[in-house]
């Protein structure tokens, strides 16, 4: 049988402390969809895009053991840097050459492909989108359905506050109040999620 990279079934085997584990979980949660969207945008089929997601995450997981050799660097920060390089290198290659395996950590840290800036920008945008999406899910579960709808209609779907008020059978004032309250919470959540960044 062929050796699949997935044979190293437990990506988390190397992540031991609870703090690191949490950082890793959050990392996977954010980056899975980010890598997936970037892959699909490049014309990959669903299953190929998912495979690429696995490959990149696998590669990052495989590099974790060398983290301990970088004293004084926070795991969270280290993770993002390695991930960024792995993603940039994955997407800066020719579409038919998704070869990703086997490279050492040094290569992962050094790689800076020529067209990186554009991909870098896209990666930053997609990561930010993911933060907003995650924050939105949390805020949505915190507020009542009508409050969320007022925000969704006016901020995401582009309705005016007046027409949202008609749709929701609420006063215009209530729509202003509801959307602002959601927006405040959303902004706070996004900031909270972004704390591990940079």
């Amino acid at each position: 049988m062929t050796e699949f990279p997935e044979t190293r079934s437990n990506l988390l085997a190397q992540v031991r402390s609870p703090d690191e584990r949490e950082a890793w979980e959050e990392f996977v949660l954010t980056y899975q969809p980010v890598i997936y969207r970037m892959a699909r945008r490049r014309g990959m089929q669903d299953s190929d895009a998912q495979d690429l997601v696995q490959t990149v995450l696998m590669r990052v997981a495989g590099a974790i053991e060398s983290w301990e050799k970088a004293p004084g660097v926070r795991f969270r920060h280290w993770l993002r840097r390695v991930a960024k390089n792995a993603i940039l290198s994955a997407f800066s290659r020719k579409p038919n050459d998704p070869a990703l395996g086997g490279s050492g950590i040094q290569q992962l840290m050094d790689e800076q492909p020529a067209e990186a800036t554009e991909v870098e920008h896209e990666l930053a945008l997609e990561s930010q989108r993911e933060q907003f999406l995650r924050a939105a899910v949390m805020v949505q579960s915190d507020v009542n359905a009508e409050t969320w709808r007022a925000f969704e209609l006016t901020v995401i779907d582009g309705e005016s506050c007046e027409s949202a008020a008609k749709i929701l059978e609420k006063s215009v004032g209530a729509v202003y109040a509801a959307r602002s309250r959601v927006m405040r919470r959303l902004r706070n959540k996004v900031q909270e999620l972004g704390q591990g960044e940079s």
Partner: protein
Amino acid sequence: MNAQRNDCDRRRIDAFLESNHVALEDPQLIEHLDSCQSCRDYIGSQAAEARSWAQATDLLKPSEFDNAGSLACSAVTIGHQSSEQPLAVRNVLASLAPTDDPNRLGRLGGYEVSGVVGVGGMGIVPKAVDPALDRVVAIKVMAPHLANNAASRARFSREAKAAAAVLDPNVVPIHSVSSDGDTPYLVMAYIRGGSLQKRLQREGTLTTVEISRIGAQVAAGLAAAHEQVLVHRDVKPENILLEDNVERVTLTDFGLARAVDDASVTREGTIAGTP
């Protein structure tokens, strides 16, 4: 700019925004907002900077690939969007047992499901890890709505038995079968690579050498099946898998296979094959 009126109360707006009690309402403030443009502007600008409002609009708009059939990757979607996954997929995923590994979608039997590699009429094919043997497998899971149908179940278990009987390098090996539970499934080797169909779409025509290589191996796989008095009956590019980096071709999907002596399966007039 709209002027502030006598009845404007900015501190009240601040308190409203900062309140952690989402249920807290302020009917008087809401009534005031019905008519005061100045306070509408104020509450908006106090809620978040203009940039955050603009980002929310841009980033939360459903993007083209948020729900393009991805499962492992769409763990985070807003509300109604997630309902756009194919029904069969949602049903199967909903039937998975929970797992404590955040990287997995759930558990089926002893297998940790990590993604979905195929969706077909009969059900879906998740990719999973067999922790006991530390190997990757593809699991063909029968869609729950078909599992209630006796004929479908019979066909499913027939495929499982038929395919499991064939041991040949050119036929995808079946590791195990579970056909009596609520969700029948069969576990087979996961072939990393793609189908001949995909390859043709991607590269167009193949070289003569390739064609004969693939043809010979498909023939070998079919011959092995025939030795078990089994007819595949649905040989097509989608069911021919090309392994990555190895010159091996494997035949899969014995869903329509028929044992030569099994007369009950296809009555005359029943159409086999995939349209």
